[in-house]
């Protein structure tokens, strides 16, 4: 029973969902600050997320806190010290949305499978 609900794939898609919605927050902040003097583009660390997934699948290691910091793929620094590139952020947002809907679809599918297992028939 424990394996039914605490499997890594369920928590992995949950982690993916949380990562995508947090990243949306960061991207929204970048877009909101597109003209803010001195603002530097922020992003969440993808390698931290990867470590989090690795820990989930190997079920060991401490919980990983995904750090946010200056983005690696920021645009050129404008005269006011700002380096937000609207096009990069829009593209990142589109990719992030795709990640989010994928995670949501996988999670929904996993719950459907669970329901089928509980009912003992194909719903």
């Amino acid at each position: 029973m424990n394996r039914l609900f605490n499997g890594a794939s369920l928590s992995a898609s949950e982690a993916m969902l949380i990562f995508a919605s947090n990243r949306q927050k960061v991207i929204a902040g970048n877009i909101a600050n597109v003209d803010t003097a001195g603002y530097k583009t922020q992003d969440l660390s993808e390698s931290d997320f990867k470590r989090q997934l690795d820990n989930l699948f190997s079920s060991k290691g401490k919980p990983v806190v995904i750090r946010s910091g200056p983005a690696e793929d920021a645009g050129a620094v404008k005269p006011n010290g700002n380096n937000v590139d609207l096009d990069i952020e829009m593209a990142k947002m589109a990719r992030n949305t795709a990640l989010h809907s994928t995670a949501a679809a996988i999670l929904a599918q996993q719950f459907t499978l669970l329901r089928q297992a509980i009912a003992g028939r194909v719903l």
Partner: protein
Amino acid sequence: MDSLEISAAGMRAQRARMDLIAANLANVDTTSVRTEMRDGEVRHVPYRRRIAVLLEGANGLPSVQVVEDRSEFRSEHQPGHPHASAAGTVRFPNVNPMVETMEMMAASRAYEANLTAAEVAKAMHQNTLRILG
């Protein structure tokens, strides 16, 4: 902080910027907002262009600061103008309609980007809700 709120703050900042651009354009020919005494003569002071400077405020959200453009006024020789100086010079606002139009395009583009971000956040919420079946 919710991502919708962040996008709303971005839209608010761009709208404030747009308000100032509209005020600048509306006052492109306002030759007298007040008078001052200089060298024993009453001089009319034209409208001074205002610009929005966006600064990083609380929670990493942009906050708008209104500053005056310190560049020089445009001077034209129009002795018949009611606001002309004794020498016949009229000072016009330091507003350049071309610059304002460009600023307007930038503000509108940034506003749209924030709007798109808000719509994406909404769609993501919907997607999450759909997990419920």
